[in-house]
């Protein structure tokens, strides 16, 4: 789960990490008031989940409260298109107004869980302000990493090594070490999956300051992080994915094709989309229906397909294991009874309780295209989406 920059900075501040003075504004007049409060030159930053705001015009440095108000009015209510969003962009409904900082150096600092060592990993670099992956490719010698042993936590010597790696000196070393210790504490306390300060700047007074911050959180841990869960901004997410969650379908991802897919299991669901593409079609979504005890999720998936004007055909591919084929079949029949299904549906079933599932479909008299195996199911749904009649 992601949060906005202003929320991330509030959390950093709670953990004693210096951030620029400022607040979030929901209207241009509020932006003006905050600029007056700050008293010095303000920056107005669009609050969206996507990165790449600077280049997209989402960050404006201005000279006065009046200009802050104008800048905010140019951002609030618009959609921001960055290299990380689609061409439709993401909505801007609030801006962060904070004091502009006098920057002498831009550094990089982050913590994530490393898949190889399986430990929290702190990464520091003196090459801040750009994508760290680019730095890692072009100048890997400028990146410093320290695994953190969760049994003893982050140690001062590790902080010193990283701080020297960033070419800090004097009092900055202990300042940076303290900042890193606090960031690690935040990372652990709040079940972060990424805590990134980019850039971490050195001001003209030689002080460290988190100029931009990105925090994301482990979805599996949200049950014990209620305060974090409340920060979620649904407006920033893909509307169809929010709708799917509201229908109890957690594993739905919008894709750009016209074939609706309902599959059990994440790996199989990805493979179905890959196979559709191999057969020259495009999936409209990824949907892992998961393990079912009742038919509601199947019916709700069909409701989503019917409401989605892009859908030209639907593929149901279920290999029953934990999920039982008969429950899925009953769900499909219920969906047909509850709504008019305006597109062809290709069904491929295998696994647990297959015979019962097939019997339910056959006896219901609903009209669908039966697939004989995995390949056949993808081939037939692509043909169906093209309007080729069988």
């Amino acid at each position: 789960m992601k949060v906005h920059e202003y929320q991330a900075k509030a959390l950093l501040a709670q953990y004693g990490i210096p951030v620029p003075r400022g607040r979030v504004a929901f209207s241009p007049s509020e932006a003006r008031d905050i600029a007056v409060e700050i008293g010095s030159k303000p920056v107005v930053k669009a609050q969206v989940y996507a990165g790449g705001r600077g280049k997209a015009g989402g960050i404006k440095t201005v000279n006065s409260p009046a200009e802050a108000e104008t800048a905010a009015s140019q951002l609030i209510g618009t959609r921001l298109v960055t290299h990380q969003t689609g061409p439709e962009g993401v909505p801007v409904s609030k801006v962060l107004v904070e004091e502009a900082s006098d920057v002498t150096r831009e550094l990089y600092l982050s913590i994530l869980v490393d898949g190889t060592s399986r430990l929290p990993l702190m990464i520091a670099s003196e090459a801040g302000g750009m994508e760290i992956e680019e730095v890692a490719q072009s100048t890997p010698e400028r990146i410093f990493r320290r695994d953190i042993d969760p049994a003893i936590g982050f140690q001062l010597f590790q902080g010193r090594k990283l701080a020297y790696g960033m070419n800090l000196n004097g009092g900055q070393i202990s300042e940076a070490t303290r900042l890193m210790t606090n960031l690690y504490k935040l990372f652990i306390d709040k079940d972060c999956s990424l805590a990134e300060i980019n850039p971490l700047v050195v001001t003209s007074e030689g002080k460290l300051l988190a100029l931009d911050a990105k925090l994301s959180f482990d979805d599996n841990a949200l049950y014990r992080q209620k305060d974090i869960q409340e920060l979620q901004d649904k407006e920033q997410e893909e509307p169809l994915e929010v709708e799917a969650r509201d229908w109890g379908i957690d594993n739905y991802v919008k894709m750009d094709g016209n074939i609706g897919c309902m599959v059990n299991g994440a790996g199989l669901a990805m493979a179905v989309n890959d196979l559709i593409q191999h057969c020259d079609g495009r999936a409209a979504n990824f949907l892992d229906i998961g393990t079912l005890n009742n038919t509601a999720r199947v019916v709700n998936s069909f409701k989503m397909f019917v409401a989605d004007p892009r859908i030209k055909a639907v593929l149901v591919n279920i290999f029953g294991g934990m999920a039982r084929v008969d429950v899925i079949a009953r769900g499909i029949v219920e969906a047909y009874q509850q709504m008019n299904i305006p597109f062809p549906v290709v069904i491929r079933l295998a696994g647990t309780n297959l015979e019962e599932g097939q019997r339910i479909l056959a006896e219901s008299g609903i009209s669908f295209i039966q697939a004989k195996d995995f390949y056949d199911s993808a081939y037939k749904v692509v043909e169906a989406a093209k309007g080729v009649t069988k």
Partner: protein
Amino acid sequence: MSILVNESTRLLVQGITGNEGSFHAQRCIEYGTKVVAGVTPGKGGSKQLGVPVFNTVEKAMAETGANASLLFVPPAFAADGILEAIDAGMPLVVCITEGIPVLDTVKVHRYLRGKSTRLVGPNCSGVISPGKCKAGIMVGEIHLPGNVGIVSRSGTLTYEVVSQLTSLGIGQSTCVGIGGDALPGSTFIDILELFEADRDTKAVVLIGEIGGTMEQEAAEFISHKMTKRVVAFIAGSTAPPGKRMGHAGAIITGSAGKASEKIKALSQARAIIARHPAEIGLTTRKALENL
């Protein structure tokens, strides 16, 4: 032979009195697995499915000689259940539970260091050596005893591959679901190493997916340490970056996480790549013919 589980596996089920634990323990018993004990704290002394239930893993091992554990404990308590099994010296722990917080898993990995336990999962379908032992939630009937090993990050996609192989008459030595989390207890390399040493495994099918770099590390291992033929498929060629595709670990965050990068690494390691997921069985048959 086979790897991880066989006729002498004596299975303990942690969480045997829960809905899923009980349902799948029953299926394992029906398959012929020796399920010798269950553990549910507070229910020690009772019986479930005719199997004695204990309060602690240690007691269950001492009384029944259990040498593998299959774990169905809910996510908030699953890591604790794994730690208990490691502490008791359980040789193999297979964790089915999905949704364990990553930082809990980090603790488990730290505690595993220097211990004798092998962990498979979490968020996996388990391990089956067809005809011998099923320690997992996979459909037993689709399997056929034989000489192809399978290692996979996915559950249902593995069922699909197994059924393709079985319908071609190609049996399996052992099928291992290592799970869809970002920090699996056993990696591709861990399992490939076991297959390489297993006399009954002639070739291995590896089913990877987007996210992380485990497939690249496997490719490195295959090119330097493996003599056996490996057939590979990577799911998620069509997955958009930055989106979590169901599995916690299936998210493209950097260029290395893309399917194309993994396929490139594996084909450079001379693994045979199945072009699409409906062709994995046929690709394996060809690989076996060319041995």
